[in-house]
């Protein structure tokens, strides 16, 4: 049995910030990361972040991840277990994990779940062919491993991820045949869209992918226009030569551990799936279990970092660490979140949070 004050599950932006924040108030932290290197998806984000200085705007995601990780690694209060997958959280508060090829029990007084998100999938003919990739997989291959995912890609989804990954593909020497988007408008920031348009990549709104075809791997895809009820318009089909179809159709919270722990959950469309009901300090309905980052609603890495800090301060304060200092830091983090959510994208998140509040949460 491994004992710790605070167990942080997940070493992405939320988890790293949670660990650093909790430790800054004097708490002992164990951070479990299932990958070999903490950093979450930051390790593959070569683009510069927006937002304010507090969330490291102007720095690239990889630099932010590296900086947070160095802080965590050099902190004597924080122990990091990599290649460690947390498998369950039980009634008595004990968490179990696979660590070093063995089963490990963890007895933590508080748990912060920062497990992030998984990519959404899309139903179409041949969507199981090799060459149909999630946008995260494409980023992993080209930005972490330095391997070109394909020669010519059809990008599905013109949200920020679809647009940014399209640009990154071109930086890696991969051709982007087109970016298609089912909605009538481009979902991502115009600055990202303009960048790839200037490079000659068409962005086709109100288009969907009907199928991916090829002998054992993707060799072409068929797309078509959709009407206002998202139904393909007959006669608008066209074939695109490509050896990969990249799906950037959104993320969904990775909430298995919250479900299994017995946290009260709710489906909140604006937060992109089922999320744990949390209070204004990000504590779930299971006392002592907190949720921060994408697991409590899909947003950007910048807000995941602030949520991580808020959960870290809250968990540490609840154990009696520097409660007055913590109160001020908690308030500051809450204000920072409001500031981050003040734009048009934030309005959607705030609407989702209002729904969480209706269900008994209060953030």
């Amino acid at each position, binding site marked *: 049995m491994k004992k710790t004050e605070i167990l942080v599950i997940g070493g992405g932006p939320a988890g790293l910030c949670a660990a650093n924040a909790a430790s800054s108030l004097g708490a002992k932290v164990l951070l479990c990361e299932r990958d070999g290197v903490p950093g979450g998806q930051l390790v593959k984000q070569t683009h510069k972040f927006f937002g304010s200085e507090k969330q490291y705007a102007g720095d690239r995601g990889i630099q932010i991840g590296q900086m947070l990780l160095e802080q965590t690694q050099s902190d004597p209060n924080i122990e990091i277990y990599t290649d460690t997958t947390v498998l369950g959280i039980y009634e008595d508060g004990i968490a179990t994990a696979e660590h070093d090829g063995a089963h490990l029990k963890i007895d933590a007084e508080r748990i912060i779940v920062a497990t992030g998100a998984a990519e959404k999938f899309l139903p179409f003919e041949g969507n*199981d*062919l*090799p060459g149909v990739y*999630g946008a995260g997989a494409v980023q992993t291959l080209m930005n972490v*491993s330095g*391997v*070109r995912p394909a020669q010519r890609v059809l990008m599905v989804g013109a949200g920020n991820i679809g647009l940014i990954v399209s640009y990154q593909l071109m*930086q890696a020497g991969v051709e982007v045949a087109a970016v298609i988007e089912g909605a009538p408008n481009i979902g991502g920031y115009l600055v990202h869209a303009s960048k790839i348009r200037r490079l000659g990549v068409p962005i086709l709104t109100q288009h969907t992918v009907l199928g991916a075809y090829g002998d054992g791997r993707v060799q072409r895809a068929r797309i078509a226009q959709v009407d206002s009820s998202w139904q393909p318009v007959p006669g608008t089909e066209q074939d695109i030569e490509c050896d990969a179809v990249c799906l950037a159709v959104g993320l969904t919270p990775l909430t298995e551990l919250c479900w299994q722990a017995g946290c009260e959950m709710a489906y909140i469309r604006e937060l992109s799936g089922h999320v744990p009901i949390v209070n204004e300090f990000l504590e779930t309905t299971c006392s002592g279990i907190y949720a921060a980052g994408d697991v409590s609603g899909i947003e950007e890495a910048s807000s995941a970092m602030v949520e991580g800090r808020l959960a870290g301060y809250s968990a540490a304060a609840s154990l009696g660490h520097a409660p007055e200092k913590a109160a001020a830091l908690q308030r500051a983090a809450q204000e920072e979140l409001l500031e981050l959510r003040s734009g048009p994208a934030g309005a959607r998140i705030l609407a989702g949070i209002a729904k969480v509040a209706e269900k008994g949460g209060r953030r």
Partner: protein
Amino acid sequence: MRITEHPVLDFRRGEKVTFFYNGKAVEGYESETVAAALHAAGVRALSHSHELGRPRGIFCAIGNCSSCFMTVDGEPNVRVCVTKVRGGMRVEEQQGRGVIQYEEN
């Protein structure tokens, strides 16, 4: 194909190692996952579906989706997208669902 020039990134791949894919020697780097090394070697189908035998490749590349299960050094159902290459490693396309080997103790 590996990226040699990149405007933002500088890839430090580490030692080159040789591993075996279905008995054939393949070159990879110790910093790479098996999935990445096989991808660089042009291998796209890592497994086949059990019922219809349809090819399966990488989908998530972060150990979430189980699309890349292979047999590695005799151990079935290994997620090769999160398994690093080691020299001499034997990576095989898995036949069937795999049998878990229990150690007597």
